[in-house]
């Protein structure tokens, strides 16, 4: 890894250099009933509106790579009745996207999605086309009370970005991970970090580590989940669950989807449309003939935890959860990952 430092006021110059592409960054979306700001990733029009000190965004940035709805292909049928239909596929990657100010959890989330959607046997070209056009600038964060990324090993990030910035007093400490980032920084008044800045950077890491509050004990978790598959505590969470799919919609790594075919009203076109779905929704496991493998709320909620914390770990030796805490924050029933995992771990332990 290459390290450089540059004065903080130079950051707006970096923004300007990247402005010909579409810049996505954390912006203030509004305020909640108590006046606290609410953030989301959105297309940014000027540097001043970026909120790089944001705690967490309401939604993840996955819809820039995995849109909530996306046409997988469309068909056109000639009116002459000849039957010479034509198929079109559009990967939906229009302009290069610059992500300005992603926290380690969200960069790690993209790295995990890559494992499934790019590095698997059947790479997903819709995801890949958008991913290939992304330039990612990471930014260090202040852990929020609900963040448990440290438990998931996703509080730091080693790859998956072009540039990672940590503010230190008057400078940005920059980790450079791509040649494009290196050449961009050449256009700023950059220099090598000195010993003092090395120490400050390491101090910063220690300070940040001390700020984490929420945690999830992950040791032997796959085995414990297997042992506690029938634990009654799942039913308690199931009674709370609204089966609304919110957790999956805000999750940076939930990629499950359904596909629907739609025919235009004039019968000259048809579309195969993909829609991000959630395993918490009633008909997620419904199959032809009408059978539903998971008709009960708790079996669906459990399935989501088993995919994140068991199935994915067995396949990739890491969890699919990055501990961003969005699902718990947006769940009206206040179902949070740390509490669910702790309750399952506690199951059977009191005998």
């Amino acid at each position, binding site marked *: 890894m290459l390290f450089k430092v540059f004065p903080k006021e130079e950051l707006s110059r970096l923004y300007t250099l990247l402005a010909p592409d579409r810049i996505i960054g954390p912006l203030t979306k509004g305020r909640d009933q108590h006046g606290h700001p609410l953030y989301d990733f959105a297309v940014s029009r000027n540097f001043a509106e970026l909120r790089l000190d944001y705690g967490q965004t309401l939604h993840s940035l996955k819809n820039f790579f995995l849109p909530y709805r996306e046409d997988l292909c469309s068909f056109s049928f000639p009116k002459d009745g000849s039957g010479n239909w034509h198929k079109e596929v559009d990967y939906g990657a229009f302009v290069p996207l610059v992500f300005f100010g992603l926290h380690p959890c969200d960069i790690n989330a993209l790295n995990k999605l890559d494992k499934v959607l790019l590095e698997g046997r059947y790479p997903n070209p819709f995801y890949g086309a958008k991913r290939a056009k992304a330039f990612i600038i990471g930014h260090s964060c202040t852990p929020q009370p609900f963040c448990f990324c440290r438990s998931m090993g996703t509080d730091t990030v080693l790859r998956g970005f072009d540039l990672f910035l940590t503010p230190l007093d008057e400078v940005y400490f920059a980790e450079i991970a791509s040649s494009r980032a290196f050449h961009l920084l050449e256009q700023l008044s950059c220099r090598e970090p000195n010993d003092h800045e090395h120490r400050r950077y390491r101090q910063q890491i220690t300070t940040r580590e001390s700020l984490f509050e929420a945690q999830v004990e992950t040791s032997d978790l796959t085995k414990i989940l297997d042992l506690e598959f029938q634990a009654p505590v799942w039913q308690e969470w199931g009674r709370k669950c609204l089966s609304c799919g919110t957790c999956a919609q805000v999750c940076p790594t939930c990629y499950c989807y359904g596909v629907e075919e739609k025919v235009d009203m004039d019968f000259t076109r048809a579309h195969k449309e993909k829609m991000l779905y959630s395993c918490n929704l*009633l008909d997620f496991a419904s199959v032809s003939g009408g059978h539903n493998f998971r008709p009960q709320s708790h079996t669906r909620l459990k399935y989501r935890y088993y995919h994140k914390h068991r199935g994915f770990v067995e396949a990739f030796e890491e969890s699919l959860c990055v501990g961003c805490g969005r699902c718990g924050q947006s769940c009206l029933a206040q179902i949070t990952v740390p509490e669910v995992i702790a309750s399952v771990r506690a199951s059977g332990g009191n005998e």
Partner: protein
Amino acid sequence: MKSFAKTSLKSFLGVPLARPRVAFFELSSCEGCQLQLLNNEATLLEFLALLEIVRFREGMKEASDDYEIAFVEGSVTRKDEEERLRNIRAQAKIVVALGSCACFGGVNQLKNRFHDLEWVKQEVYGSWPVDTQEAKPLSAFIAVDLEIYGCPIKKEEVERIVTDLVLGQQVRHPQYPVCMECKAQENICLFDLGEPCLGPVTRAGCDAWCPSNRLGCWGCRGPAPEANLTQLYAIMRDRGISQERILDRLECFGGFAGFVADLKKEKGEEGKE
């Protein structure tokens, strides 16, 4: 799916498609759902090309009783409407309940909240002789083949449903609640703004129309097939939303009548203790 007479010039992938004869009817309603269909200039001609409309009071003078599909808007609030509805059922191959009034009673059923309907009649109409009874959905009197939810209906959804009907495809309603569509629009949750919202229990399909305009959902499309009302009620109470306010919302369109009845019974019993 029932088949229609093949009177169409349309075809899809070489298969000729029927152009069903369709009639629109209105019982007690504002006819706003029917107006929604006419309100769609961009695709109106395509929509009309799918169907042979033989009766549509909002858009034509002619009226025939020779139809295969009947779209019935409104709730039943009079004796003569019951009779009319049974005649429609006898004629139509498919009866479609169009809009919240037809599906659940709609805003009309709010009067059912009052125990003394004679008093309601007196308050509203005075001494004017009006035949009126408890407002009920179509399904209280006849078998309904298909329900199209919403107050008003969403025209894009009607177009999709009619296209599926003509193609002979299964008509699918979303099985998930409004939250899914609201999150897909990345709205700020109404609960974060301190507002009540029935999005977590209401059937989707409206594209989170109201929440996207910062109005909490009033449940006009009725409950999603899995609606955890007990939990949502507890959540709202925890957030300091009064029972009266919650009931106003749940009772507005009639879709949650079962839960409301249970709740009132339960609370009534608590009150007696």
